[in-house]
């Protein structure tokens, strides 16, 4: 019994630093992305994970010095993304996109998506507030 209690306590303490964190943060951008850091990103889609609970995709962008950076972009669940118009068909590999969103708090190449526009497509608003 005592062993079980210690085990539970250890899991509870370790959970925040493990992979449990993205699930706990689920459906809020605030723990992961900085609401004060709104950015625009232009690049080419390199991969799409159209899965629940959140759709993720990667975009290769070019820096001013000509290097390429791979960004990881997070958006809503498949039902809410699809309802906003962002279906899997609108996310072709190699497609050129212009995105806005909130950058990761770490300052790295990760962003929570606000708007999505495929070249020659209409601009879709997926999330209005960073909540």
């Amino acid at each position, binding site marked *: 019994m005592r062993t079980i209690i210690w085990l539970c306590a250890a899991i509870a303490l370790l959970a925040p630093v493990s992979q449990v964190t993205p699930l706990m943060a689920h459906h809020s951008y605030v723990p992961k992305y900085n609401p004060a850091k709104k*950015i*625009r990103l232009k690049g080419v889609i390199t991969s799409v994970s159209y899965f629940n609970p959140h759709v993720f995709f990667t975009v290769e962008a070019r820096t001013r010095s000509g290097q390429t*950076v791979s*960004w990881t972009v997070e958006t809503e669940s498949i039902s*809410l993304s699809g309802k906003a118009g962002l279906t899997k068909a609108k996310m072709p590999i190699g497609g050129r996109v212009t995105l806005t969103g909130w*950058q990761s708090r770490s300052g790295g190449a990760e962003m929570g998506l606000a708007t999505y526009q495929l070249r020659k497509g209409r601009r879709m*608003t997926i999330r209005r*507030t960073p909540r």
Partner: protein
Amino acid sequence: MAEPSTGTPAPDLGASDVAEVLADGAASELPGFLVPYLTEINASAAAEIVRTVFWVYPLLETAHVIGLGLLFGGIFMLDLRLLGMNKGISVSSLSRHVLPWVWMGFAINLVSGAMLFASDALSLAANISFQLKMMLLVVAGLNATVFQLVSARGIERWDERRSTSSGAKLAAVFSIAVWLAIITLGRLIAYWA
């Protein structure tokens, strides 16, 4: 809350800053008289803290789950007893044991839920899952009130080792169904807007 300043410029990752703020489109889907109040809630200092201090949102979500455990756990045990399980425990003594914890869970979830709501008041008020959840919370409250005022009368006749009244059984089945729906709708806020 201010971001920690590193003093060094951010590395060029190919993104540019934008100042645009999108208007909350949820306002157009809501009854007009509610919009000013919801806008004020959304702009409150508490809402701003929930949106911007990175650990507050997950803390509130965690509190909301713990509160739900206390709330539904207690209600479910009481409902099972009303349905005739464990007749050796009297309904009134089980109530005395369970209800203070149910009320504590309710208080935790009222506060955590109100703060989570404030952080995105307009979108949530327009969210169909959220609207149905709030309606069913009122229904659950009415069911408990009707049980206390009507079905629980004459409780001394079926408090222990007796079959509970059919009114009590009906209230218990209804309560379980409504609470399961409330939990499901709460979870669906992120998927069915």
